[in-house]
Each structure stands twice: as C-alpha cells, then as structure tokens.
C-alpha cells in the first residue's frame, strides 16, 4: 500500500529499505569476519542501525500516534540494550579465554591482565544528593 504521491511515505519506505540493507550487511559480516569480537561488531551494530532505521521508517509512515511512539520507544530500547549486551558478551568471551584472531595487532586487555594490572586514576564520583 505504498502511496507514491505522498513524499513522506516514499521517505519512510526508503528509510526501511536502507535499514534492511544494513541488516543484510550485518549478517554478511557475521559470516565473513574471523573471531567472536569482530563478529560482535558486525552482528550487533550494523543490525542495531538497520533495525533502528526500520523502526524510524514505521514512525515516518504512521506519524506520532500510538504506533509511532511505540516504534520510537523500541528504537530507544534497542539503542540502549544492544551495545550493553555486546559489551557483556565481549567481556565474558575474553574472560573465558577466547583468543583474538591471529591477525590481530594487539591486546591491551590481556597485557593488563583484564584490568587487574592497571591503576585507575580516580573512582567514579557519586553526584551529590540534591
């Protein structure tokens, strides 16, 4: 049901098509890249952008109604949870001993014994209770 006379609809479907393209590249990257860390890069991020663009397309197509707001919220949740999950997987993989791909150029994390050999300059400040 594409209304070709409505520029906003065309924009919406264009954004969705771009999202699908990024999702596809993410999947290709998942197959082609060598180790768990590089695969996380493609698998979580190209796919994050792709899915966010799909949801953005939904927002453009349906406007700020009940559906548009939900699309926007899903977009926000994906943008917040996907990097957190990728970070957790990468950290767990490193601690479980999964080596970097042999062509990798350096691993500061292993050099620093997974953060135990480094002295943090300052602990995080708690904001003052206002």
């Amino acid at each position: 049901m594409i209304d070709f006379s409505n520029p906003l609809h065309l924009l919406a479907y264009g954004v969705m098509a771009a999202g699908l393209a990024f999702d596809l590249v993410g999947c290709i990257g998942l197959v082609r890249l060598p180790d768990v860390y590089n695969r996380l890069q493609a698998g979580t991020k190209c796919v994050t952008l792709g899915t966010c663009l799909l949801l953005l397309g939904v927002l453009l197509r349906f406007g700020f109604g009940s559906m548009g707001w939900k699309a926007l919220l899903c977009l926000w949740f994906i943008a917040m949870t996907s990097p957190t999950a990728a970070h957790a997987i990468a950290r767990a993989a490193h601690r479980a001993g999964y080596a970097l791909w042999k062509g990798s150029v350096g691993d500061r994390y292993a050099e620093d014994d997974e953060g135990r050999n480094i002295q943090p300059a300052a602990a995080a400040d708690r904001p003052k209770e206002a």
Partner: protein
Amino acid sequence: MKKILALFVFAFLFWLAVTWTFDVASIVTGAVVCAALAAALVGVGLDEAPLLLLPHRLFWALAYVPVLFLYVVRANLDVAYRVLHPALPIRPGIVRARTSLKTPAGRVLLANSITLTPGTLSVDLTGDVLYIHCIHVPEDDPDGAMERSLARFETFIRRIFE
C-alpha cells in the same frame, strides 16, 4: 526526593507515549501507578536522573541524539565497506583509553556510545580505563588516537551529566 520526582516524570511520559489516550481515567491511573513505581524503584534508578530535568542538560541530551546518529551512520558505512570488500581489510585489536568523565552514568553513556559506533566495541570499563576492541587499529599510537576520538563524545556527555 528529587530522584523520585525525576523517575515519576520519565515513567509518566513513558505511560503517555505507550497508551496514547488522554482521558481522565487513563491519566489518573497512570499518575498513581507511576508515583508508586517511582517510590518503589528509587533505590535502583540512576543517581543522575534528576539532572535530566534541568532544561539545559535535557537540551544537550536531545542534541546528542542526532550527533551520535551521524557518527553511527558514518561508521556503519565504514564497517559495511570492510565487510563487503573481497580482501576483508581489517586490523583488529584491543586498545586502552582513559576517559576524563567522572560520573558513572556519563561513563556508561560513553561506553555505550563507543559500542554503538561500529568499528569500536567496549570490552571492559575499570575506573576511568576503557578497553576497546577496534576492527581497524591505526598504525601509530592506537591508544592516543582512540582517546582523541573519545573527546568528541566526552564534550557532549560532560554537558549532560557533569
């Protein structure tokens, strides 16, 4: 107290966005539920949440969204190029970078921003030290290059949370 208020405001806006009905019954129900939730969850909410009620901080938080989006798109095109290139031109490795941000929320937002920008993935955060997996490590001074590219995020995050 301010934290409860902040949590209430965000929960209530969330309620309005999800239900998208504006009759009295729906709004009253939402207000009561959100107030109870805010009071119950004050212990696990972000300590920095009240800061987002301040207009200038909210402004920078909203201004950060399109900026981050541009970086994400640009970096995605870079990763797409590397993935689709027949020779797979990658030079992966883990670098170390120190952040000048002080608050926990600021550091978490920075780590998430790094991960969202393709080509870089936060592996661990110890105090002010970030370990970042890069899909293409620069030839000379990889740690310094990473710290310089963190600076553009830090300027924004500092205005939001510090």
